[in-house]
């Protein structure tokens, strides 16, 4: 007969698989569930079950959503001619918080990583191209982290999107609001200087 695992230990083991969750936090959480009202815990279990059963990728933007097309893609107030490409679903929320964007999104679900053998096939690049070919899109904004993997992904996309009659833009790299020049690294400062913007024209 197979040995039955202690449910507390099993839960700690499973929780540790959550990204960013160490043994201490997993144990703390498991004890919390043990003490919490049964209704609350069963509600969480049901939410997890529904998450697996009902969440899917939006057929338009590849973001995970309860319905397809997702709320953003189905919103008539959003401009479908401007697509903001992000590496991960979690990057949409901060961009929305900025209040500066009214277009739609496309989620790649990762970045290219040659050393980890993550190529274009592993990302949602083909759906992006299909989307661009099928609809009148005027601008693609690349809002991907400026890490080496992120920049590699942007270079790859820029190469794919050139000659398609699109405006392709990317978020500039430079000083963060409230930061201090004295404590900013020289490469970021150099990039900020090279990409400086004109604020007034020379007096004649």
């Amino acid at each position, binding site marked *: 007969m197979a040995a039955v695992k202690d449910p507390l230990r099993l839960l700690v083991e499973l929780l540790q698989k959550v*990204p*960013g*969750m*160490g043994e201490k*936090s997993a144990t703390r959480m498991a004890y919390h569930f043990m003490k919490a009202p049964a209704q609350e815990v069963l509600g969480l279990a049901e939410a997890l079950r529904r998450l697996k059963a009902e969440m899917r990728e939006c057929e338009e933007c590849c973001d995970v959503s309860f319905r397809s097309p997702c709320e953003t893609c189905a919103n008539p107030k959003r401009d479908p001619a401007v697509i903001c490409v992000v590496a991960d679903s979690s990057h949409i929320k901060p961009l929305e918080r900025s209040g500066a964007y009214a277009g739609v999104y496309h989620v790649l679900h990762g970045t*290219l990583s*040659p*050393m*980890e*053998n993550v*190529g274009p096939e592993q990302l949602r690049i083909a759906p992006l191209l299909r989307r661009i070919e099928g609809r009148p899109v005027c601008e693609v904004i690349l809002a991907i982290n400026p*890490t*080496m*993997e992120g*920049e*590699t992904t942007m*270079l*790859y996309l820029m*190469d794919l999107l050139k000659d398609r009659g699109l405006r392709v833009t990317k978020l500039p790299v430079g000083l963060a609001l409230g930061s201090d020049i004295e404590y900013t*690294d*020289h*490469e*970021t400062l*150099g*990039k900020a200087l090279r990409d400086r913007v004109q604020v007034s024209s020379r007096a004649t």
Partner: protein
Amino acid sequence: MKSIATEAVVLRRTPFGESDLLVGLFTRDLGVLTTIAKGARRSRKRFGGILDTLARLNVLIETRRANAIPLLAGASLVDFGLGLRSSLDRVAIAYYMGELVWRGTKPGVRLIELYEAFVQALDRVASDGPMPRTLAEFLLRYQQALGYRPKLDACALCHAPLAVAAEVAISYRAGGVLCPACVPSAEVNLRLPGRAVRSLVEIRAQGDRRPTDHALEDWSAAADWPALRHFLHRFTQYHLDVQPASWRWWQRLIDA
């Protein structure tokens, strides 16, 4: 506890635990090693955004117990490698060289000459230097540093000096070029134009002397680069049993 200050290039970054980052480094004084950057993902105060792949840093590494992962106690930026990010080719070559270092060298083994070769090659690739020659130089120095230097100026089997020829046979198993007399008794893996082999000998003879940009542009073997690239890669793969994922990625770019 022992603290070591050295220069290093970041080769790998892997999230670890709740807020830490495992950072794979190729250091000047300690070879390749994996360090742990505590809290690097939670707070940007200590490291900012500088722990990025292929960034060159001055690092402070603290070793604690014998089997514990060394602690990355501090880091400051030397070069972020922004020039590498100007084209996919440059990125692909930089990743390829980095992966060879990571997979082909033993952790903790000091390889200063290879470190210098790697950093020089990254600089040249980042600063618009011609990439084929830079990569050929790096691969030759890589093979030499790891003890698998291919014999190119004399037969790898009978050691007879190589006569000028239009085509030269190569055997990975024998360890380099073959003279016509030894070809029938050896396993020949490929044949290279004689001028391409001579250009590799010339590159190696120049040693650490940094050629001028003019010399780089005039590299006589540029036309033979696809064959040379194939040879240098396969020879490395045969002797070091390294199959870099980034090579396949780069090949896809070339094919596209």
